[in-house]
């Protein structure tokens, strides 16, 4: 790679979009979008889920064709009909979901994406050169399944950089990274910028954008709302542009005297062996959640969160009933139905396929977990009016944007479906709520509404356990924070006494009682 791609001083913008329109059957996804990316800038693209960011980027990357509008590259109009066209122009993209074959090596995966045939040795040398040059430690001979998520992302970035792109598009790159990995990524991006490469950076994380980006374009409802200098804006003002209204303020924390109350959810010395080869064993996990408090569990995905969720929800049963107590009642041997009767509600990790059935209506999806709720099932028959009524109450109370209770779950955006699932659990008036990644991949407006709902539920006296990778989220809503690493859980500490550095260190497995060696090597993340 030739190192620098600097344009002359008075050069036209590297990429200019003029009046891009794109519609899918029934929806206008991009509405006359203008966007300019200058040479050597990091340009943020902000917007809620469904604002049209991904569609716009797919048009730039040649995956989709615009219905109308012009794309100018270095000032000249171009037609980008395929990702190969984009690559030839010098546009590279790092997707949010990695496209890597786990059983192949790094070099083999890279070779699959190339159009020309390159001998493996030469390719490995090129990979090493790029990874050394940018501080992206990637060993070409390692297999993907041995790599952590952060390392996998580096493979994708190296693959992209091998094409010597003048414009790199990154879709939510930090959503899978630890804070430290994110900082390392920012260093790489700044180095690319210093070489004169342009970067289009899609993210929800407002603080990150303010720290990293020179300019930010905000999309709302398919239209470009504003292009601003994020350093001149606050996180709140950016959020306002994105959502269109003032983001709600979380109500001040009421002093509920939670310390004195009897625990509502207790896990005591839980040991659980993995039930599939890629799982994590849980070892000696203990925690306590009292009424009126939120316990947050931080940690990088794949450290046992999934196993803990399944043990808590009743999807996996344990031999020793006392390992989990709900409201003081031993419950570890009970299935999900009996645990719900004790007052447990669960927001699972996956929205589609676990928390909701994509092909079923919202009314049917309400029934999925609320069937013990008054009147939905009578004499073994489903009461249609009651289920639609319950679903409508959820839709109304939690501001779910949907065509009503007869809409299919998969027709909702991620944020709206998550609001529906959380609303469905909360309207059942649980005494204990366990939620995994409640705002993962959810737009900022929905995330704020979900946080408010959780805090309201806490203030009504429920005990809440939130498992999340998003530290900002835990700092916002949790009263105490504990960290899970390699299947072991740290002691919890009050949120105000837990610094981000401490948490970051604990995520790396540095706490009392942590596994001496990360069990089973690096956690595997799909």
């Amino acid at each position, binding site marked *: 790679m030739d190192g620098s791609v600097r344009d002359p001083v008075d050069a036209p913008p590297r990429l200019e979009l003029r009046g891009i329109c794109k519609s899918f059957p029934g929806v206008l996804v991009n509405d006359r979008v203008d966007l300019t990316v200058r040479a050597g800038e990091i340009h943020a693209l902000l917007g809620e889920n469904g604002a049209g960011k991904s569609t716009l980027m797919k048009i730039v990357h040649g995956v989709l064709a615009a219905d109308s509008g012009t794309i100018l590259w270095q000032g000249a109009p171009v037609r980008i009909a395929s990702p190969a066209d984009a690559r030839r122009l010098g546009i590279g993209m790092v997707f949010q979901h990695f496209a890597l074959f786990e059983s192949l090596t790094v070099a083999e995966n890279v070779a699959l994406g190339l159009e020309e045939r390159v001998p493996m040795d030469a390719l490995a040398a090129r990979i090493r050169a790029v990874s050394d040059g940018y501080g992206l430690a990637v060993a070409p001979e390692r297999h993907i399944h041995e790599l952590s998520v952060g390392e996998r992302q580096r493979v994708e970035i190296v693959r992209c950089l091998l094409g010597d792109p003048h414009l790199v598009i990154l879709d939510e790159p930090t959503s899978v990274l630890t804070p430290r990995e994110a900082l390392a990524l920012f260093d790489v991006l700044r180095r690319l910028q210093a070489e004169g490469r342009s970067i289009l950076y899609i993210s929800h994380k407002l603080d990150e954008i303010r720290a990293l980006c020179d300019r930010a374009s905000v999309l709302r409802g398919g239209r470009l709302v504003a292009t601003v200098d994020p350093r001149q804006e606050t996180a709140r003002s950016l959020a306002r542009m994105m959502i269109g209204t003032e983001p709600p303020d979380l109500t001040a924390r009421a002093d509920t005297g939670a310390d004195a109350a009897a625990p509502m959810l207790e896990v005591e010395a839980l040991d659980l062996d993995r039930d599939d080869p890629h799982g994590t064993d849980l070892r000696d996990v203990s925690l306590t959640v009292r009424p009126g408090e939120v316990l947050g569990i931080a940690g990088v995905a794949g450290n046992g969160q999934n196993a803990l969720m399944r043990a808590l929800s009743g999807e996996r049963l344990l031999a020793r009933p006392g390992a989990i107590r709900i409201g003081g009642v031993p419950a570890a041997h009970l299935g*999900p139905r009996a645990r719900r009767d004790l007052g447990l509600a669960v927001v699972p990790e996956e929205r589609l396929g676990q928390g909701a059935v994509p092909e079923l209506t919202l009314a049917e999806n309400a029934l999925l977990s609320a069937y013990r709720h008054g009147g939905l099932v009578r004499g073994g028959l489903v009461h249609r009016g009651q289920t639609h009524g319950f679903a409508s109450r959820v839709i109304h109370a939690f501001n779910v944007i949907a065509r009503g209770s007869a809409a299919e779950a998969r027709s909702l955006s991620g944020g709206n479906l998550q609001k529906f699932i959380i609303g469905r659990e909360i309207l059942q008036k649980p005494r204990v709520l366990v939620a995994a990644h409640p705002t993962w991949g959810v737009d900022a407006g929905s995330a704020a509404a979900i946080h408010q709902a959780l805090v309201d539920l806490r203030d009504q006296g429920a005990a809440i356990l939130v498992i999340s990778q998003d530290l900002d989220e835990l700092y916002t809503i949790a009263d105490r924070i504990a960290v899970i690493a390699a299947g072991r859980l740290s002691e919890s500490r009050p949120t105000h006494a837990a610094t981000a550095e401490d948490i970051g260190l604990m995520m790396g497995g540095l706490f009392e009682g942590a596994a001496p060696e990360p069990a089973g090597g690096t956690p595997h993340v799909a």
Partner: protein
Amino acid sequence: MWLRLEPRPERSRVMVYLTPLVAAGLTAVAGLILFAALGHDPGHALYVFFVAPLTSSFGLSELFVKATPLVLCALGLAVGFRGNVWNIGAEGQLILGAIFAGGLALWAGDADLPWLLPAMVGAGMLGGMAWAAIPALLRTRFNANEILVSLMLTYVAGLLLGYLVHGPWRDPGGFNFPESALFGDSALLPALVEGTRLHVGALFALAAVGAVWVLLMHSFIGFQVKVIGMAPRAGGYAGFSQARVVWLGLLSGGALAGLAGMVEVSGPIGQLHPQISPGYGFTAIIVAFLGRLHPLGILLAGLFMALTYLGGDTLQIELGLPRAVTGVFQGLILFFLLASDVLIHYRLRLGPVRVPTAPPGSRPQAQPAQSGE
């Protein structure tokens, strides 16, 4: 300009109901070509196959006679299929139902017992359920594939029936033919219309349509079957038992197939012999899918598939075509149905070829990255 498929934002409800008709139409077209290639007047042959059987009251009554076991078997299969329980052995369960009910009839002989028919109904259903319980037990206990187990048990059932009518149950006065004695009058289902073979078994099928309709469309257990079938992980999250759905699916299939077997031997046949079913249990699989796993759809599809049996017979008689024509048409209809089902999720468009992409409504939702724990 090219023909291309464009993904729909949501499943088309119109197409769900329309594609069976599209498939029937395409089958007719394929039939035209087939008959022409065989050197027959295609229009006439198609008339003989699809229309002629319906022009007499005898033909109509035969249609209902043949549709009865098809509808019964398909209804039971649909319960399992909705829950991803693949019972392929309705044929064997039907045979066991016939053996259980027939055994009772032979034991009774010519005695006039008012409770005999209800007892035979119960015995037939029990026989089918017993046979279906084997794959259910092996699946829930040892995770054995129910497709293979239920299919292979069909051949065991056929051999069991063959052994009985060649051996212990052979009619002593039957000139050594492999068949049982004729059932006594009190073991025969009364006719619905005098002078035809149409019997009260057809009413059993209608009652079963109603019962399965309530079970699948309105009961909570039917909802659980649907959830487990569509998204097993969601079923696990909700606390629905997979094993319960497997048992329900197979036992419903067994009970209704067993009832179909009882209806056959106690209705049109009146005795046991090795060929009590021309593959009703297998054809019922096509009926279930052609009817969209919906009880009313199954009723219509059962009538249609019964027509292919009758049409095959009339073609044999009038044009001298082999009996295999029935099987060919049944295969064609399933083939075209599966092919045209693509229209439920996609629409046909004329236009230049483009890289197909998912519309916003159907794109995969962002999910937390996680290990395969």
